């Protein structure tokens, strides 16, 4: 099983995912061991990468969300986010100058959606001179389950359409089993070899429906349209700003092919 796990992990680690793996380990060390070990901070968290538009302000000293709002939506994040952010800030009574950090989901998810949140977070960071940290949606989905200190593996899967999922597997203690990538669903199902998992992410039910009948059944299938914004905030407090960069995490190249001129086409036709 270990050899297969390594093969699964290795063969799919074809994106620049090493830094993200490091983030996850650092987070689980810091956050899982004790939330109290996170230094006291006021964090503004933003998520528009998937089917919600959400923002929250977390005070790690009191472990309370001072203000938060999450609106389910498939489209329209660009129109909705800044008014929502205005309401959250007004409701919190916190000024931008009082924030210690801004955390934002970086994807994988809707390319346009994740850029909405990143634009807002980076714009605020620039104008208010605050650090901005990035959290992947896969990490944010997995975090609540990993934090329960379970032994079972946690599979985070996000619908990438065309029978593919954005996909990551971590063990119950948060160490990486399969690095983030975009893979066909039938390949994702190979993760059944790690034992009965927790399935999280907006594609959790897609995987559950096709789960191999001869494999241990998932312990829980938790399908949320978007990560919990509170977890984006908590993760944002825990990560290192030097490594958890607020940059898009697409996992997919743009769909574009180089084009040829009439002359090149003629040359091709003649050859």
């Amino acid at each position, binding site marked *: 099983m270990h050899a297969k796990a390594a093969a699964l992990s290795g063969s799919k680690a074809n994106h620049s995912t090493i830094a993200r793996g490091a983030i996850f380990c650092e987070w689980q060390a810091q956050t899982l061991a004790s939330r109290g070990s996170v230094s006291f901070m006021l964090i503004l968290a933003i998520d528009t990468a998937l089917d919600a538009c959400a923002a929250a302000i977390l005070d790690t000293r009191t472990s309370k969300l001072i203000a938060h709002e999450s609106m389910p939506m498939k489209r329209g994040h*660009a*129109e909705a*986010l*800044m*008014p929502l*952010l*205005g309401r959250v*800030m007004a409701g919190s009574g916190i000024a*931008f100058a009082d924030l210690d950090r801004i955390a934002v989901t970086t994807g994988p998810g809707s*390319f*346009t959606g994740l*850029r*909405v949140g*990143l*634009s*807002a*977070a*980076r*714009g*605020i*960071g*620039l*104008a*208010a001179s605050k650090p901005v940290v990035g959290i992947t949606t896969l990490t944010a989905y997995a975090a609540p389950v990993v934090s329960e200190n379970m032994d079972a593996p946690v599979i985070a899967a996000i619908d990438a359409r065309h029978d593919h999922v954005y996909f990551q597997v971590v063990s119950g203690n948060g160490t990486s089993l399969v690095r983030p990538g975009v893979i066909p669903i039938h390949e994702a199902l190979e993760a059944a070899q790690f034992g009965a998992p927790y399935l999280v992410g907006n594609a959790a039910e897609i995987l559950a429906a096709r789960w191999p009948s001869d494999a241990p059944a998932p312990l829980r299938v938790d399908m949320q349209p978007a990560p919990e914004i509170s977890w984006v905030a908590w993760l944002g407090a825990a990560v290192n700003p030097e490594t958890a960069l607020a*940059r*898009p995490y*697409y996992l997919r190249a*743009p*769909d*574009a*092919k*180089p*084009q040829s*001129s*009439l*002359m*090149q086409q*003629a040359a091709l036709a003649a050859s």
Partner: protein
Amino acid sequence: MTTDQPMLVLGIETTCDETAAAVIERQPDGSGKILSNIVHSQISDHAPYGGVVPEIAARAHIDLLDGIIGRAMKDADVNFAQLSGVAAAAGPGLIGGVIVGLTTAKAIAMVHDTPLVAVNHLEAHALTPRLTTSLAFPYCLFLVSGGHTQIVAVLGVGHYVRLGTTVDDAMGEAFDKVAKMLGLPYPGGPQVERAASGGDPKRFAFPRPMLGRPDANFSLSGLKTAVRNEASRLIPLEEQDIADLCASFQAAALESTADRLSVGLRLFEAQFGPPHALVAAGGVASNQAIRGALQAVAAKAQTTLIIPPPALCTDNGAMIAWAGAERLALGLTDTMEAPPRARWLLDADAKAPAGHSKSRAAY
């Protein structure tokens, strides 16, 4: 916003393949000064594809924009709290890029409670000459770029009447497509102009679209097809063939442009009296051959030709900042609800020419 104080305005432009930011200062007397103007062209990112790829453009905008804004602020020696306004091009354009620019602008505006101005990119082109010269309304604008070919009566800030438009391709688009079919490097417009300078404009008798029509509309798609047919017939193309094709194409486009603009100026005068100037703006306005043709048109119509310097003709942040300042001076600001817009008519009442309700002229 009162107008008795100088205003400092940040402008952000991300509607196509330039990531740009600038800070301008507007004096109470209406004069303006560019304090910084940073433009990052993504040309090399799109060159392998022979045109702007929207997703690649959007990715570059999000990667670069905050750094470019930071540089523009530093170059201007202005901090965010000092700004009188934050302006962003909210369209029309490639929506992925517009979203990045507008959302960033909203975020900056929200942090210091600075007024936001959601600028129409076309309005920014229209108002640019007032940044560099003292020009009163009304004037006639020829907006000519890779995305637009319009003749517009500029009657005041926010007050525009479209007198003519292309019913198919934009001028810059036609130049780019001709370059592409002839295997010239991207971006093709300047390459066509360069090749044309060594070519025979009379070798090919390409059609002069719309010549003599009473309206002021353009059509470039048929001309482009005529070039394609001729080029296909000549394959394999020698260098001189390419030069002659480019020269003959450009001559046809210029003759058509001169005719369309003359009609546009007549329509302008009939409705609004003589214009204070004929203004050209947009990327194609930096084409020297077109500048020459416009000079002749303006002279014939007994009006002044104003073409902003090339750096202000192509997309830039200063024009957005300036349009933002002009709107701000009139108290025209926008809310956090301001939507990013892929389509946004400068003249909200403009109707597509008869028979072209489904063409780009309809928006």
